[in-house]
């Protein structure tokens, strides 16, 4: 969030209304929405401006965005800034997605754009972006909760990939990125295509192959009745099915088949004319529709939901939650944790051990708040590190730390940025291997000093609590953690022999003391 530095001081600041702008620089569309919080409605969209700028094609094909398009983008963003100023917007978030990620010169380009427009741009990682996309649907809380009660998949169609997130009984089970996107598919297959039917066949072939793997691993025998699709520009196709009282449009399998049959033979120009959309957008519609058709078949979906929400909605929803302008019944942290847990299950980690450690680790974290000074986000990272700390064993019992590091780095954890993922990977790695200090570490990583400090602190906590369940037999249940002066006392009521735990603890305590300057003490109380 960046403060413009106005809207403070003079004027009617007694007004409790907050203006927030969300800017999303997508592959084909750059959009801004301005929201008002605390007015007549808790959260209200008051402006939506979007410009068609196809920067994705450049990025995916050439690895950079042409200077002409960068200039166009700057013009649009300058105008957006002007509109923000007009509404006296005090905070904004501007995010770029895959087109920026796929550009080799991303940093240079971003710096140029930031200097030209005065807007700070965050480039979201895939998992961050998808998480925000997902939040945009969740912003329509009631209907969303209803849909995910039964097995449901959220498919986010991007320019260069699909993100498939699986839900069952309100919980996120997994989320996977499939490298098949609406723009890239069209670009790559177009030269090979003989006719439209052939194109359809090839897209189906590619996607079915990818989906088969997904199905084996995650879907198993579930029938995914509900398919929620965001992105891909197919909202235009389903306008006739919109219902007044529903915020999310839905069509049945049969209805979708009708739409599909109508458009599959059309060329982008016909689609553009028929549905009154730009031909740029229309070009992505056919691949997207094929994806939907294919997935509905493979998943056994009966209903297709097409929420008309965008990244901007998600960004604003996120902002509103963080600032407590609105409340959500759905816990997004739980989603992140759920997806971490499903990863740990896949690698056969001991869930009992993890639960025990989680409780301990969080207690230590909470007691030590004043000393470590870390916040809610780091607490979440610690929890995920605990959940994943043992996953390396799945591959090798010998080189656990390196294997765990590699698994984490190769796995997308929805809701986390790339840097956060790396922090977790290091925390887990240093849990069992030698802690590498910054001078040495900085050669290999892009994480900053601050982030490194968090890694050190999280590692210290993880190492110590991990020692308490050395035997994985959860001997140290119902531990009580207290902090007094420079001593952290962990009291465990247990009748069992804890000598192994005590031994390991003292060994690991050393690093803890080094990091926090707090001496940890382990105490067993045999009788109550």
């Amino acid at each position, binding site marked *: 969030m960046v403060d413009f530095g106005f809207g403070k001081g003079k*004027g*009617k600041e007694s*007004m409790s*209304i907050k*203006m927030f702008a969300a800017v999303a620089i997508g592959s084909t*569309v750059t959009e801004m929405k301005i929201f*008002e919080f*605390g*007015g*007549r*409605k808790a959260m*209200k969209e*008051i*402006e*939506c*401006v*979007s*410009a*068609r700028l196809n920067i994705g094609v450049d990025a995916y094909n050439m690895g950079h965005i042409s200077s002409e398009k960068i200039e166009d983008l700057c013009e649009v963003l300058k*105008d957006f800034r*002007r509109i923000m*100023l*007009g*509404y*006296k917007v005090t905070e904004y978030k501007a995010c770029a997605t895959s087109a920026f990620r796929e550009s080799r010169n991303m940093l240079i380009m971003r710096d140029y754009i930031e200097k030209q427009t005065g807007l700070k741009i965050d480039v979201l990682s895939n998992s961050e972006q998808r998480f925000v996309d997902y939040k945009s649907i969740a912003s329509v809380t009631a209907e969303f909760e209803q849909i995910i009660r039964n097995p449901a998949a959220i498919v986010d169609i991007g320019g260069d990939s699909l993100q498939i997130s699986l839900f069952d009984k309100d919980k996120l089970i997994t989320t996977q990125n499939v490298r098949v996107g609406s723009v890239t598919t069209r670009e790559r297959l177009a030269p090979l295509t003989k006719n439209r039917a052939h194109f359809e066949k090839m897209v189906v072939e590619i996607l079915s192959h990818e989906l088969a793997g997904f199905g084996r691993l995650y879907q198993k025998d579930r029938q995914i009745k509900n398919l929620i699709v965001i992105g891909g520009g197919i*909202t235009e196709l389903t*306008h006739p099915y919109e219902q007044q009282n529903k915020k999310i449009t839905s069509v049945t399998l049969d209805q979708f088949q009708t739409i599909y049959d109508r458009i599959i033979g059309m060329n982008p120009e016909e689609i553009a004319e028929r549905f*009154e959309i*730009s031909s740029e957008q229309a070009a992505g519609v056919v691949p997207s529709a094929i994806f939907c058709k294919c997935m509905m078949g493979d998943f056994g979906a009966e209903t297709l939901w097409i929420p*008309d929400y965008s990244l901007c909605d998600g960004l604003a929803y996120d902002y509103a939650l963080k600032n407590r302008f609105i409340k959500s019944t759905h816990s997004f942290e739980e989603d992140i944790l759920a997806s971490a847990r499903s990863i740990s299950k896949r690698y056969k980690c001991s869930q009992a051990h993890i639960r025990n450690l989680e409780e301990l680790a969080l207690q230590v974290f909470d007691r030590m708040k004043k000393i470590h000074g870390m916040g809610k986000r780091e607490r979440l990272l610690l929890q995920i590190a605990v959940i994943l700390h043992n996953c390396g064993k799945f591959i090798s019992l010998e080189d656990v730390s390196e294997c765990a590091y590699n698994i984490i780095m190769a796995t997308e954890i929805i809701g986390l940025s790339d840097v956060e993922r790396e922090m977790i990977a290091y925390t887990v790695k240093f849990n069992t291997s030698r802690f590498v200090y910054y001078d040495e570490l900085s050669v290999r990583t892009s994480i900053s000093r601050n982030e490194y400090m968090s890694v050190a602190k999280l590692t210290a906590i993880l190492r110590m609590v991990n020692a308490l369940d050395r035997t994985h037999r959860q001997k140290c249940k119902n531990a009580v953690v207290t902090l007094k002066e420079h001593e952290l006392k962990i009291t465990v009521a247990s009748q069992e022999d804890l000598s192994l735990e005590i031994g390991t603890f003292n060994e690991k305590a050393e690093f803890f003391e080094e990091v926090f300057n707090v001496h940890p003490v382990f105490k067993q109380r045999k009788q109550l």
Partner: protein
Amino acid sequence: MAAIDFDKPEYYINRECSWLGFNSRVLSEARDKNLPMLERLKFLSITSSNLDEFFMIRVASLKDMVHAKYTKKDIAGMTPTEQLAAIAVQAHELVAQQYSTYNRSLLPLMKQCGLELVTEHEKLTKQQKAFVDQYFEENVYPVLTPMAMDSARPFPLIRNKTLNIGALISKKGEKEKAKAEFATVQVPSVLPRIVQLPEDADGKRSVILLEEIIEQNIDKLFLNYNVVCAHPYRIMRNADLAYDEDEAADLLKEIEKKLKKRQWGEVIRLEIEEKMEPKLLKILKSELNVKEEDIYRISGPLDLTFLMKLYGMEGMDKYRNQPYKPQSVPGMNDEEDIFTQIRKGDILLHHPYMTFEPVVNFVKQAAKDPDVLAIKQTLYRVSGHSPIVAALAQAAENGKQVTVLVELKARFDEENNILWAKMLEQAGCHVIYGLLGLKTHSKITLVVRREEDGIRRYVHLGTGNYNDSTAKLYTDCGILTCAEPIGEDATAVFNMLSGYSEPKHWNSLVLAPLWMRDAFMRLIQRETHHAKAGEPARIIAKMNSLCDKEIIAALYEASAAGVEIDLIIRGICCLRAGVPKVSEHIRVRSIVGNFLEHARIFYFENGGDEEFYMASADWMPRNLDKRVEILFPVESPEIREKVRHILQIQLDDNVKAHVMQPDGSYEKIDKRGKALLCAQDYFCEEAVKLAQTAPEEGKSRVFIPAEPIED
């Protein structure tokens, strides 16, 4: 029953012929003996300027089509050549009628009223002659530039729409008829066309036209020559500007360039004094390359627009209508700010019966109001010293975000608009020029205000331009509202006009060129369905022109299904009313009165669930397909009743209304046995009454001081 082909050309009227018919209706006002003398002169003057514009735009473009060998038939099945032929016949008739009105009715009437126009300089009294000669010496002679044509000097450039005197001259001493040369002099447009002569002994006023003064003194221009003859003439050139927006990188420059070019162009009409010497005419005809049918022989002064100058003459009030003072809007007051008043409920404005002030105040107050964040407005034609433009500039200087769409392509107004655009930019406004290839004709103002409970948008939507001068002469409607759906749509309109994507959906507004045609078609066809289902079905539509084939065909279909249709169309109407089986249920009336009927109002009965709309658009292809226009619903129940009343009064008018006959001609209503009702007069009186009673209704609160308790 065999399906009727509603597309048959015989069911349609050519738009040019229909327009000429409209101008005849205006002319009929000049012939109306019930009107004061000067009012009649004004109407005659209007027919003259109307006709000029018609030639420059419509005839010119038909000529272009003929040159381009474009033979596509119009709505009534006529090729461009056929249309030009039909126009020539009708236009000649119209001109003949103009001058018979002028010569037979108005000149004698003026004299009766104590204002004599000396038609020929030969008729001047000795005293007057002396005055005229002196006036010529002092004022006219210095600005004249006589030009002769001979082997060394080519035929000079005669400017579009200027009045000139052509003469044949021969060198003194030589035999007169042997070698007459052509010479011409422009009647200077910098001098008044009408010159007042000194009052005579009994205080009678008389005037003479400038060209007569020049003719009187023409010898003085060609000193070594004898003037064989001298006659006024005037030409009209092709002035239709077809902008190529794709090519013009900078729209502003392109239009500035075109403006300079406008004076060159093919001559499409030559007006000459009836009694012009054939030899002189022959030279003009060949040099200007004019065909016989394009020559108009005029039995009177050329270019009757000068009559408008007489209209303003001082000391003749009794020969003019009492000027009408637009009344205050019922329910509005001066105490509260306009935003508070709008929050209480939508406000209907009916100009010029009601004052245009609220619209000006809307922008003025927004410019000063500390809570206003932004003002956005479309400007199409603004008046000379527009208070709105000044307020917008002021707003920008006060730190408001001001976005102004200036439509540069407003016909004949480009120079004016470029000026405003530059001035607004300098003041810090964000000036946009609309969308490539589309004229922005919609009239919308959006004020964004930050209030205690959040952003609130105030919108003015109108049927007429933001022009405080024409708002006194044109009848238009407008609505002030802060309804959220309209506010959101208004924001989307300006985003679209700035080149951003259209919104995902519209709440209330319907825009041309993308959605309006379909919307109107749906609305008309819905009535057809209702009629077929035996439900109440009725359409009342008021507009300036109707010439869109698709719409007309839909109206025929509706009529055939039994929908009762009343059209109140001031100008062009290509629909033929009362054709058996096709338009039996359609009635067309045209109201031509003191004010120019300009509002666009649409009513659909919709099986009892009535809908009222207003728009900036007529049912013309250019409005529906080539312009940005807005159709907006009238939703407030009180305003709906007011709008219904407006339509009903217009349908009841039997004074100024002309009703279309099955042959396409218009006739006034037989008033015998009927109470006279003139809609415009009715609205004037009604507005006065309402304005008088209004303050009592919304009486401002007065606290009564307590009196001391008496013992």
